[in-house]
């Protein structure tokens, strides 16, 4: 088996995550889909690392995880505070910027 299949899998997971972002309304689920996309990217990075025979790809994946962690912390905090004020976690309801 050629390891390039990992890349196909990563592309597939990324696309599924993207579709999820588009069709789900629950902000938490949307967030999960974003995490899924990030993970798909990480898989691609790890595969590239193996392809090139050096560890730089893994380092990038590592940084992605760190950033994802920070993002989750802030994002979930935002969801919680939105829920507190508006009693909903639907991304469609957060449309106050529209005139």
């Amino acid at each position: 088996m050629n390891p390039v299949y990992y890349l196909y899998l990563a592309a597939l997971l990324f696309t599924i995550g993207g579709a999820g972002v588009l069709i789900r309304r629950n902000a938490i689920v949307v967030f999960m889909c974003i995490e899924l996309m990030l993970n798909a990217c990480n898989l691609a990075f790890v595969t590239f690392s193996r392809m090139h025979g050096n560890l730089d790809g893994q380092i990038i994946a590592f940084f992605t995880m760190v950033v994802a962690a920070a993002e989750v912390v802030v994002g979930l905090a935002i969801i919680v505070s939105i829920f507190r004020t508006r009693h909903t976690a639907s991304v469609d309801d957060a449309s106050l910027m529209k005139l």
Partner: protein
Amino acid sequence: MENLIALLVAAPLVGAALLLCGGKRLDRTGHLIGSLFAVASFAIGVALFADLLGRGAEDRTLHQYLFSWIQVGGFRADAAFQLDQLSMTFVLLITGVGSLIHIYSIGYMEHDERRRRFFGYLNLFLAAMLLLVLADNYLLLYVGWEGVGLASYLLIGFWQHKPSAATAAKKAFLVNRVGDMGLSIAIMLMFTTFGTFAFGPVLAATGETSEGKLTAIGLMLLLAACGKSAQVPLQSWLGDAMEGPTPVSALIHAATMVTAGVYLITRSGAIFNAAPDAQVAVVAVGAVTLLFGAIVGCAKDDIKKALAGSTMSQIGYMILAAGLGPIGYAFAIMHLVTHGFFKAGLFLGAGSVMHGMNDEVDMRRYGGLRTYMPVTFITFGLGYLAIIGFPGLSGFFSKDKIIEAAFAKGGTEGWILGGAALLGAAITAFYMTRVMLMTFFGEKRWDPDTTHPHESPKVMTIPMIVLAVGSVFAGGLFSVNETFVKWLEPVTSFEHGHSPVSATTVTAATMVVLVLGVGLAWAMYGRRPVPATAPRGSLLTRAARRDLLQDDFNHVVLVRGGEHLTRTLVYLDHSLVDGAVNGTAASMGGLSGRLRKLQSGFVRSYAVQMLGGAAVLIAATLLMRGV
């Protein structure tokens, strides 16, 4: 001596400023101050003239540089004066005749409460005209040109309480504006063609310039001259301008204003010499106008309007002569000077008659005045003899030369022009005799109970006498040894024309038509009593009374046409311009309304758009790599 040139202009300008800004405390002395500054200007002019005479014929051009007026990049205009023989002639005419008219006005305007202001305007008129003839470039000339227009507006409308005077002033101003446009376009053309508009470089460079451009410039200059000199087709203001006080008419017709056009064409002689097509236009305008004015003059019963028609006709002679090129320039100017004398005299005489007749202007209510105002009769009579070209008087010499030069043009053109000039001379003799007979001869047609004709005071008659002397002797003086022609030759250049008919024949022909014209007038107005009310007259007479339908023509063609043009333009503006603008706005609005729908505020819609964008990017990348 060069430094005196600016003083020529400055003197009347200071006078105007003093009188117009001085307020009521100058009311009692205003007329004296105004006349003083005019005479001072004349004195300076005489001093400069003496200086010029003391020089050789080639050094008679003086320059005075005042300051750099406008300088932007390659655009340069100086406030600088140029005094040469041509300018000198005009300076003497303007200041001399102008001063006499100032003095005359002291008496004529004695009872007018706005006399101070009147003299201020007169001074302004002189200053503007002097600036016009002394400028050393076309742009400064333009300033004087506009100044003359302004002063004429103020003076024609001086009795602004009369609606007719206010309207006439506006009419004069508007018609003049048309000509001014021509001059400004001509100046712009000069700048693009020559890169300058100083007389020296422009006139020296005509040799290397294409004839087309010169023709365009020449035609624009002709348009300008038509406006100021009341030539067809811009002649309509002159008759109405008689609404102004009579001294103003004298000033406009004799010394200033209408002579500006002749000056412009003569000054720009080099341009016209190099553009024969423009010259043809000039002589055509001159010939048409001299007949037009003469015919109008025949039909008018208003003494001033008859004289106005005469002016138009005489200026037509000058323009005709100026259009003939080097064979005519000198005679145009010579006729201008002699005309300045006798026309000023005639107008002042007419003013004197009106002064004694309770401001009556209708000649049908005059008659037999020669015994009541003898000085006026004699001076007016001398002016009359001069204008019809009575042998030995001024007009004889100058007009005869013009007719000769017209024949000398050669070919069919020469015959037509010469014929027109001769015909004009006959008509001139007719209408001037008519004026003379109706005014001073025949039985009294005025009411002796209400009207007490009397001679004018000395302050009015003395200028008339001086002008009458000029009318008698100027022409002869100028013609002895061709003095005048030689004087002007360095500026205007001169060639003897080769006439197909000899000078003697022309003179004889002139005499014949003169006698014919006078005889016809005598037959119609001398032997028969003149009816106090005008008979209906022939079709031509009625048309001529209406200035040969000039105003009707202007109304139908220009006013109506202008209205229609304006309406069309307004319609186009509404439908096309506004339509385009509003259409753009509406389409932008509609597009924005559509695009606004994209901004739904829903994060997921934005996410769809982002994903779409990303997909497009990937597709583009793949395509670029040549999938």
